[in-house]
């Protein structure tokens, strides 16, 4: 079965609060995941980078693969880019 709408974001696990951009995405573009149109992006997201699927508060866990991959260092709005500027590793801090 091929999705009617081509996905722009992959949600790996249903527990995840971030998705993965499947190509370079532009601010204002709407997220399509699992064939379903969702919400607009607040900023550009490079391919294979993470986008917040919901509003995330400061010091909340960032969940990808259904597991914690880091902690937010500030509030992150749905549709924002999530990376080292707003995510802190719990180990091997640089």
């Amino acid at each position, binding site marked *: 079965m091929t999705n009617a709408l081509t996905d722009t974001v992959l949600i790996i696990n249903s527990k995840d609060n971030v998705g993965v951009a499947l190509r370079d995405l532009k601010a204002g573009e709407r997220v399509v995941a699992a064939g379903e149109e969702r919400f607009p992006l607040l900023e550009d997201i490079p*391919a*294979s980078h993470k986008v917040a699927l919901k509003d995330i508060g400061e010091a909340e866990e960032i969940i990808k693969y259904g*597991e914690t991959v880091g902690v937010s260092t500030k509030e992150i709005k749905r549709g924002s880019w999530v990376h080292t500027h707003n995510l802190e590793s719990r180990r091997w801090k640089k």
Partner: protein
Amino acid sequence: MNEITGFRRNDGKVGIRNHVLVLPTVSCVNGVASRIGKAVPEAVAVTHGHGCGRGGPRDIEILFRILTGMMKNPNVGAVVLIGLGCEVSNVKNLAPMIADTGKPITILNVQEDGGSLKTAAKGIEAAKSYVAALGAQKRQPIAWEELLIAIECGGSDAMSGVTANVAMGAVSDWLVDRGATVMFGENTEMIGTAHVLARRAKDRKTGEEIEKMVDRAEVLTRDIMGELASLVISPGNMDGGMSSIAEKSMGCIVKGGTSVIHEVVDYGAVPARSGLVLQDGPGYDADSMSGFAASGAQLMFFSTGRGTPAGFPTVPVIKVASNSRVYRAMEDDIDVNAGLLVEGKSLGELREEMIERMVRVINGEPTKPEANDMGVFTFMTIHPPF
């Protein structure tokens, strides 16, 4: 149509290939094995850089385990073992270790069999007769429970943990549900996820073994790389969207799926349990694959994002591209394009295709690395040579 077939061995194991293995005990006689391989192209002649010069007990343990494991691998139907005579892993020590398999073996020693040319001539004769004998053996139905399938990733890119490894994980779960044993390793690429793996362990003891294995890998990485240890997550990884070592490692361990982890198996050792098991082995693909083969893996999956064509001499390796660009750039080397996951193909659809392809490969269809003769054989050592 998931009927699978293979070759039954005297020790009760099943192979999905019926190879004649030509194996040198030590690098000094590699040329003899190569000569036999050229004369008998149906045989699988391998070479390697080991066999002597490393004295530590751990290195000797690995040396014997990998060489005997190569011969014991169920895909091998007969062995021509080429010794020198004065090496650590000499035939007198090695050959008895595979006696219990009942596998046909011809043992030669260059120092006793007239030098390299005469030894090669004897080896050619033996290999030819084994090729003829194995050629007459018929495939028989086998069960998934009889298979050990290993999962590797290498030459990874930012999409490896998003497409190819997720797809291999889905296949892994399917295999475990059918009673197969699935193994993955690369302990350095588990750093930051020990707690995730330990939580999935069958019991507390197995969980503790997982934690210890990953701790050792982390300590070793820091000892060897010092300040550069942070490069285990590299600037290139970060450019690709990885924000933490845990995220990178999750993308790696997802290739094993989500099943219960039953055992931590030492490098090249044979698992005692079925289901999903972990190899305590290195991240370097070539060394890792030799460990899987010595553990008895009959088949491997191998994802790649940058594009490595490497396979294994005696074990079919199904190569899975993480993106369409590398798939198109190296189409002759890659079996499956998981990059289609970002172009509208569903995970379920891709998984079914991978399972169909796997069944055909088990039943004899060559993988790309097999067709291209891209098998590589080398293995891990701990200490430098003396």
